[in-house]
C-alpha cells in the first residue's frame, strides 16, 4: 500500500516533467534536449523569487509560467522555425533539432552557471509531514501531485474539448494535412512549443520545493521525460500521465521490494516490454 502511495506521488512528479516535452516533441516536432535545463532554470528562478522577494513558489508559478511561455515562443520563433522550414523531411528535422537544442542546452547551463554558480541549492517550503495510511509524506510532494493532476486535466480539457486544442492535435497527427484544412500550422506549432515550455517551467517550480538542484543536472530530467514521452506515445497527454504513474510505481516497488540499486534496470525493462507489445506507445497511433 505504501508502495502505491509513494509510487503515485513519484509518478505525479514524473508526469509533470514529461507533459511539457510531449507537447514540444509531439506537436512542434522538436526533440528538445534543453527541456531539463528549462526545468532547472525554473527551479532557480523560483528559489530566487522565494529567497529575495519571499514570493511563495505556488504564486511564483503565476510569474514563471507566462515568462517561460514567452521565452519558449521566442526560442521557437527565432531558433527552431528556420530549422523546420529548411528540413526536407522529418528525419532531417529530428537531426537538426537535436543539434540545435544540444547547443541551447549548453547556453542555458552557461547562463545558470553565471547567475548562480555551480553549487547545490535547496530551500524549505511546505516541508511538513502529512500522514496517509500510517506513513508520512511531505506536504510539498502532495501539493506537487495535485498540481500535476490539475495541469494534466487542464491540458486534456484544452486539447480535447476546445477548437484550438483540436487544431493542435491535428497538427500533431499530420502537419501537412492540417495546413490543408486552414490551420495555421507554424502558429499552432509555436503555441504548442511555448505551452510545453510553460508546463515544464511550472514543473520546475514545484520540484524545486523538494529537490536539491544545481546548474548541471538538467539532463537527468530530460532523460526521464524522453522515456515517459516515448512510452506514453508521442504527443499524447493521457499516455504520458499513465506512463509516468506506471514508472513511478514500478520504481518504488523495485526499490522497496528488490533493491534500490536496480530502479533504472526496472525502468528500462518496463520500457522494452511496452515497446515490444505496443511499439507506438501506450496510446500512440500506428505509424502510417
Amino acid at each position, binding site marked *: 500500500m505504501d508502495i502505491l502511495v509513494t509510487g503515485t506521488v513519484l509518478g505525479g512528479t514524473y508526469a509533470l516533467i514529461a507533459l511539457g516535452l510531449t507537447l514540444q516533441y509531439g506537436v512542434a516536432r522538436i526533440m528538445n534536449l534543453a527541456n531539463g535545463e528549462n526545468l532547472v532554470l525554473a527551479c532557480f528562478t523560483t528559489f530566487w523569487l522565494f529567497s529575495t522577494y519571499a514570493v511563495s513558489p505556488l504564486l511564483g508559478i503565476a510569474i514563471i509560467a507566462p515568462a517561460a511561455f514567452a521565452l519558449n515562443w521566442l526560442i521557437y520563433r527565432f531558433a527552431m522555425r528556420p530549422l523546420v522550414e529548411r528540413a526536407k523531411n522529418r*528525419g532531417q528535422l529530428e537531426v537538426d533539432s537535436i543539434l540545435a537544442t544540444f547547443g541551447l542546452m549548453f547556453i542555458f547551463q552557461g547562463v545558470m552557471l553565471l547567475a548562480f554558480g555551480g553549487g547545490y541549492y535547496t530551500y524549505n517550503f511546505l516541508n511538513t509531514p502529512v500522514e496517509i495510511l500510517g506513513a508520512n509524506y511531505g506536504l510539498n510532494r502532495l501539493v506537487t501531485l495535485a498540481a500535476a493532476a490539475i495541469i494534466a486535466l487542464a491540458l486534456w480539457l484544452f486539447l480535447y474539448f476546445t477548437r484550438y486544442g483540436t487544431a493542435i492535435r491535428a497538427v500533431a497527427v499530420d502537419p501537412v494535412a492540417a495546413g490543408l484544412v486552414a490551420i495555421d500550422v507554424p502558429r499552432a506549432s509555436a503555441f504548442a512549443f511555448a505551452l510545453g515550455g510553460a508546463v515544464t517551467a511550472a514543473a520546475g517550480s514545484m520540484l524545486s520545493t523538494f529537490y536539491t538542484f544545481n546548474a548541471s543536472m538538467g539532463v537527468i530530467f530530460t532523460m526521464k521525460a524522453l522515456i515517459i514521452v516515448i512510452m506514453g506515445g508521442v504527443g499524447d497527454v493521457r499516455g504520458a500521465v499513465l506512463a509516468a504513474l506506471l514508472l513511478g510505481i514500478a520504481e518504488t516497488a523495485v526499490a522497496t521490494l528488490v533493491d534500490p540499486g536496480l530502479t533504472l534496470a526496472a525502468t*528500462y525493462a518496463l520500457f522494452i516490454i511496452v*515497446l515490444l507489445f505496443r511499439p507506438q506507445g501506450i496510446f500512440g497511433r500506428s505509424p502510417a
Partner: protein
Amino acid sequence: MNAFTARELRTAVIGAAALAAAALIPLADDGYYLSLAVNIALYAVLCTAWTLFSGPTHYISLATAAFFGIGTYTVGLGIDTLPFPLLLAIAAIAGGLIAGLVGVATLRLSGVYFVIFTLGLAELVRQIVTWLQTNFTNAVGLYVFTDFTEAHIFWMLLGLAALVYVTGWLINRSRLGFAMRIIGNDETVARHAGIDVARSKVILFMISGAFIGITGAVLAPRFAYVEPPSAFNPLISFQVVIMALLGGTSRLWAPLLGVIPFTILFDQVSAHFPNHTSLMIGIAFMAVVYVLPRGVTGLVEDLVRTRGSGRPATVAERAQP
C-alpha cells in the same frame, strides 16, 4: 572480388600517407599537442565507428558510452591477469554482444525509440555494473597501471582508425554494404528485394559496437583509475553524435571533418573562457548548426562544386536527405 579502381587506389595511398604522417606526431611533441592529438584520434575512431552503423541506417545511436565503458571495464577487471591484446579482443566481443542484444530488441522499432533506448543504455549498463560490483566484489574503482604512455595510446588509436576504415571499405564492397545502401534509401524496397533488413542492421550495429568497445579498452590505461562515472560518461555519446553529424555521415571520412575542427574549437573555448565554457560552446554550436546546414562535408562539397570541378553526384549522394 574485382580489382582496385584507380580512385580507390588513390584514396588508399592518400589515407596511408596521412596515417603515417599522423604517426610521427608523438616524435614532434609529447606534451599538450600530443594529448590534443589523442583526443582527436579518440573521437575520430568513435565517430567513424558510429558512422559505420548510423550513416547508412539513419538510426541515431546514443549508446557509444555503453560500449566504451564496457571496453574500459574489461581492461580494468582483467589487466592483472590477462595480456592486453587478449583484453582488446574480449572488449570487442563484449561490445559486439551487447550491441547484438540491444539491436535484436530495438532495431525493429522506428528510429525515435532506438534513440531513447540507446540514450538510457549507458546508464543502465553502468547501474548493472555498479550493482554487480557492490554486491559481489569489494570496490567500484579499479586500478589500471601499465607502462603505456600517451604516445603508445595514440599509435594504438591510429591503428584502430586504420582498421575501422578498412572494415568500412570492405563492408561497402560486400553484399552487406550493398544491402545497407538499399535499406538506407528505402526500407520497403529492400524488404521486397528479399533483404533481411533487421538482420543486416543488427550485424552492422554489432561491428560498430565492437570497435567502440576496443576504443574504450585502449583508453583504459590512460585513466589509471576506472570508475563508472568516467567510464560510462554520457557526454561521450553526445559528443560523438554531434561531431559526426557536424562532419556529415554520408561518407566514411566525413566525420573526420567534424572531429578535427570541433575538438580544436572546444579546446580553444575552454582555454580562453574557463568560466564560460558552457555558454561559449552553446553559442558556437548553435551558430554552426545554422551556418553549416549540411555539416562540414556539405560545405566542402559545395566548394568543390562551385570551383567547377564538380563531378555529378552519385546515386547514393542524391538519395541522402
